[in-house]
């Protein structure tokens, strides 16, 4: 059952990812990216990570995708689609190198799988792991401060004199 769901999701995810790169229409490409986020959330659900799936939808589909779309709206000449510039060949080389590295790593790494049945309510476990004894309280707080600084920096940059 989960196998079928996984393969359907995997195929759809890869098609959506290809569409993001290959579509000429930037707006449609952005929507394909949103769809990709949704299918990745579906993969999380098949892995019993329900909290992660919901947060994925909330953050990526609800917030980040909207920011991306607004960013596209502010781009000039978006009617022409993504034009091919002078950096075509270097971009191809860098892209191929990155792909090669990723494929190599994915193939050579030993992936450990656990036999332990998944935790049923994952939310409490995640909370304890993050904020409990010996958890990651300081890194979480530092990340929050970092993001706040970035937001403030952006506001200062665009502020009218």
């Amino acid at each position, binding site marked *: 059952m989960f196998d079928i769901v996984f393969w359907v999701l995997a195929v759809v995810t890869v098609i959506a990812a290809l569409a993001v790169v290959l579509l000429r*229409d930037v*707006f*449609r490409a952005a*929507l394909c990216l*949103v769809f990709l986020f*949704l299918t990745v959330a579906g993969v999380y659900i098949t892995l019993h990570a*329900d*909290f992660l799936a*919901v*947060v994925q*939808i*909330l953050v990526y*589909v*609800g*917030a980040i*995708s*909207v920011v991306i*779309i*607004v960013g596209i*709206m502010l781009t000039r000449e978006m009617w022409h689609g993504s034009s091919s510039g002078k950096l075509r060949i270097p971009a191809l080389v860098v892209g191929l190198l990155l792909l090669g590295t990723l494929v190599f790593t994915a193939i050579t790494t030993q992936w450990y799988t656990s036999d332990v049945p998944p935790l*049923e*309510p*994952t*939310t409490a476990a995640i909370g304890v792991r993050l904020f409990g004894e010996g958890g990651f309280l300081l890194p979480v707080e530092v990340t929050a401060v970092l993001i706040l600084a970035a937001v403030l920096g952006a506001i200062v940059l665009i502020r009218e004199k």
Partner: protein
Amino acid sequence: MTLLEQFQLWLATMWPEWAAYVTPAIVGVVIVIAFALCMVIVFIYFERRLLGRFQIRLGPNRLGPEGIFQPIATAVKVLLKEDIVPAKGDKWLHWLAPLVVFVPVLMIFAVVPFWEGAIFIDLNVGIVYVVAISSVSAVGIYMAGWASNNKYALISALRMVAQVVSYELPVILSILGVVLMVGSLSMSQIVAAQTIPFILLQPLGFIIFFLGAVAEMNRSPFDLLEADSEIVAGFHTEYSGMKFAMFYLGEYCHALAYSCIIATLFLGGWRGPLLPPFLWLLIKVVAVFFVIVWIRATLPRLRVDQLMSFAWKCLLPMAVINLFVVAAEVLWLPESLPWIMVVVNFAFAGALILLWSKLFTLGGGRVEV
């Protein structure tokens, strides 16, 4: 264990496994969608008659006794209209947008508890699921605005983004107050924890959530994205026929869904004396919707800058303070004396609202907050 899971176990004793797995799901979906659509038709009639009363006119009262068949006639009329697609618009997205708006709203009903065990699926991340799913329909509105190839539609879509992103923060912060008290994200546990409805324990949280929810469902006085006097009809200017009907239904479904969520989070859900639980939920939902219509009939529409400053300068700081106070009370106040909390929180909410209304009064030469 929910009723549907029991149904599934019972079926599994005589049917093959896949049939026992699929059948309860289909039954549940049909029941939930039937409930949503029937209630939406009732709501449309209810709102039109209520608005008539509020505005001292009759409202639709001709078709059938007291005009109860008017929504059906309206639906038939809308379905018979020609479906027009702008020549230079994006046809695929134009077709897809109403679905992307409507489907997530229907999916909210999956976690609304109707009574003990009568919930489609009791997710243990229930309330976060509601927030996450309802943020998806923002993308649909954006698609509609873009695919219409119409400047008013696009302006409306951009306004919607600003509005939804701003009001999501106070809504989530006020939900956190409830979650702190319950200690769980599951909707059925939230109902189970309310021996005293949370509206009494957290009046400020309720007000913030209510206003934020009204803003998120884009109803008056926050309906800037379809402000007829400024941008025609907003994102659905170029829509007609069935597709327009989807937006229209989606709007009422959203109102219904958020009425259910407000009733569940703050009014005690299906809990109540004497009457059957389902009827209690229905009474609370209709009461919430009545207040929403009342606000629509009474208050004028906000300006764009007022809308944003209301979210960022009023609701957000109040929601943060509310969360702090609730956290402190959950930590230090004894659980055996909830009525102390009720009194303290009411006094506190009153003081904060008074303070903020003093800080943000317009007039006397002041035009923006």
